[in-house]
């Protein structure tokens, strides 16, 4: 784990789970694997607090445990999963995708499961139905069956998966204090054959509308009874979690389609979308390209509102194949031409476009020209760079050295003589895409960390003002609920002066900008991470 990743993980844990979990998590990341005792000793926290934090982390899938170095008889060791923590940045994107694919019900299901880590199907259905009922007008309520059908669709398309079952070790003796801890080993979720099988649950009913607090006690008693009922739903022990990989595949496809639409046109984007949709189930997650599809199949599978003629489709496919971005490749001639989508190459090109854009925005378009030149031509001497880029020598030198000092360009020395005399050595400049992508990814992590810290600082500076405005809002809400006159309301509103109001407004604007910035940097992080993972997978 790099220093920036550790810092970002710490900030994310602190934001969602508080300081205690952040402390525990950061120590686990820094030290690799730790046992419970060692962790308590390192963090100097109470043992109960450490246990609670570990429960939270394991519940959310961010921490795994296993038998330690001393085998099953020794203490359990905990190992943290950093990627899962970094995925917390992307939660809004997952939820929005679920909303666009499966509507409000899907959105709420994914949101509930993301916030709670793992949930059983019945509890998810009940909670989501209650939430939807709460937003519906009086008298209507959400039927459980609709929520169940949305849940089933999510499972069928693999967006949700079962949590891997624990292979429990035999525990000798019951009730004695010396029982060895039952070390259960979680396995890869995909290796379980029932990973996407829906359990049969007997659940029928409607969402309950949450009453106001006057009925608090009756509600609590009802809630207690409901809790004892939930054990009879039939899906005890089957927990569901969000399948991040599937969401990532979906984002990758979206990126490719939007790139094609931007570069060529809408119709080409639709053709690529059709090809990707057809090969969803047949392509594995790490495949370099999709299964070959014939032009006939593509023609049949195009959506009906896109009635383009067959020869036009062929022209589009030829255009796509000839495009230098190499999104689509031709794999044969049978069936009117066999075509594949080159996934890894598409990712590499998208990453390259990102790198070029970064250089352009930070150093200007001429530096970007030098960068692109070096990307294409591999190794060039300084004189050749000046000539090919058509930039005057002095400026080219300056730009090259700036890029070199930022580590975006590397310098390779090739001596002509054994004594490495400078006048008799070639100095070649080059850009390597993969290390540069890794460097930029670390920059992105650092950026998000900086954005979060700045947001925390801004919030802390104006804490007094924020608390005051929250109190006033609460007073206003309670006054309105009890039906107060307009004069009273305006009186309360005037408790915030105009300059304070302005300050609040600008604070809100800043925080929105910082949050929005985090979301946008996360898109770049996703692209670079996908590219780096795809090159590692193909090795």
């Amino acid at each position, binding site marked *: 784990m790099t220093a920036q990743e550790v810092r970002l993980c710490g900030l994310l844990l602190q*934001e*969602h*789970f*508080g*300081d205690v*979990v952040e402390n525990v998590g950061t120590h686990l990341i820094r030290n690799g694997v730790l046992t*419970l005792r060692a962790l308590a000793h390192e963090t100097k*926290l*109470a043992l*109960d*607090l450490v*246990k*609670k*934090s570990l*429960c*939270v982390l*394991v*519940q*959310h899938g961010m921490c795994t*445990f296993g038998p330690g170095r001393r085998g099953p008889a020794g*203490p*359990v060791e905990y190992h943290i999963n950093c990627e899962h923590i970094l995925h917390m940045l992307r*939660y*809004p*994107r997952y*939820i*929005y995708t679920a909303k666009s694919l499966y509507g409000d019900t899907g959105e709420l299901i994914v*949101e509930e499961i993301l*916030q709670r880590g*793992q949930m059983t199907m019945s509890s998810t259905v009940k909670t989501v139905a209650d939430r939807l009922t709460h937003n519906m007008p009086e008298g209507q309520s959400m039927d459980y069956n609709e929520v169940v059908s949305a849940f089933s669709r999510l499972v069928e398309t693999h967006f949700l998966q079962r*949590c891997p079952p*624990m292979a*429990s070790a035999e*525990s000798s003796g019951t009730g004695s204090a010396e*029982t060895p*801890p*039952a*070390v*259960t080993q979680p396995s890869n979720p995909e290796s379980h054959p029932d990973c996407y099988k829906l359990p049969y649950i007997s659940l029928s009913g409607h969402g309950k509308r949450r009453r106001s607090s006057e009925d608090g*006690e009756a509600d*609590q*008693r009802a809630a*207690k009874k409901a809790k004892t009922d939930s054990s009879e739903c039939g899906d005890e*022990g089957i927990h569901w979690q969000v399948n991040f990989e599937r969401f990532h595949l979906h984002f990758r496809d979206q990126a490719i389609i939007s790139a094609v639409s931007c570069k060529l046109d809408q119709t080409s984007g639709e053709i690529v979308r059709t090809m990707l949709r057809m090969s969803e189930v047949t392509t594995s997650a790490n495949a370099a390209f999709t299964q070959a599809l014939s032009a006939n199949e593509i023609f049949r599978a195009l959506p009906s509102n896109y009635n383009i003629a067959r020869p036009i489709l062929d022209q589009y496919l030829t255009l796509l194949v000839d495009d230098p971005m190499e999104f689509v490749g031709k794999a044969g001639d049978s069936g009117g031409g066999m075509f594949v989508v080159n996934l890894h190459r598409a990712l590499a090109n998208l990453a390259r476009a990102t790198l070029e854009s970064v250089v352009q*925005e*930070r*150093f*200007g378009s001429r530096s970007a020209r030098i960068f692109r030149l070096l990307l294409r031509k591999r190794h060039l001497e*300084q004189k050749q760079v000046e000539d090919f880029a058509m930039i005057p020598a*002095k400026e080219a030198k*300056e730009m090259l050295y700036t890029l070199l000092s930022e580590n975006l360009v590397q310098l390779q020395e090739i001596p002509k003589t054994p004594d490495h*005399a*400078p*006048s008799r050595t070639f100095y070649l400049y080059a850009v390597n895409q993969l290390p540069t992508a890794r460097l930029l990814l670390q920059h992105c992590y650092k950026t998000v960390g900086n954005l979060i810290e700045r947001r925390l600082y801004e919030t802390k500076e104006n804490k007094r003002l924020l608390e005051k405005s929250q109190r006033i809002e609460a007073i206003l809400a309670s006054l309105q609920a009890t039906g107060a006159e307009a004069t009273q309301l305006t009186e309360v509103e005037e408790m915030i002066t105009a300059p304070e109001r302005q300050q609040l407004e600008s604070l809100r604007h800043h925080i929105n*900008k910082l*949050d*929005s910035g*985090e*979301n*946008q940097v996360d898109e770049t992080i996703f692209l670079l991470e996908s590219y780096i993972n795809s090159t590692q997978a193909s090795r």
Partner: protein
Amino acid sequence: MSRGRGRNQFTFNVDALGFGRGDSLPTTTHTPSPLFPPMQFQPVPLHTGEEVEYMLALKQELRASSKNLPFHIRAARTKRDVSRYSDKYQTGEPKNNTIEWSPDWSRLPKELCIKVRKPQKTITGTKQQLKQRPKVAASKEDILQKLETLEKEEVHSEEEEDEGKKKKQNDDEEEEPEVEEDYDEEELEDETDYIASYFDNGEDFGGDSDDNMDEAVY
């Protein structure tokens, strides 16, 4: 004419440096570079649009709601020297280190098992409190402990924290499932305001007055 062999020559091509022989070197810096140096190129503005706004709202909502979930762990406040009046009203922080949600313990290693904290009742819980006393007395074996507990209950009968304390005591002395059963049973009993042990059915009332007939009875 060269004075010494190779003494007056540079070993590399001077033009490559970017300045000639006679030019002055760039000035030295006296201070560290500024913290926020002026940028040569302004950054591109952020994306806008419905999608972006929606995700922004989602993000802020998630952040706010995650603070209210039981997964947000706050360290229990250490006991200060004197118990203050305001402690009664600041119930936001947990007083002990039980866990506030019940995970599936079969999926976690046994060593992480902590007592699950029951959700606290509201003020109306005093009814259950009064009912609980005879039950608590009946199940204890040690008389001293019984007296102690009753005494504590008398003193703290107004505070809601009692619920937690009694549960904790129960948990410490009995095993957890038993206490849960007790609790449930009490819930299902009739809710009356009358405590069985306080009820005095008046059988010994008339017996005492036989001895002192000459004293006036008021």
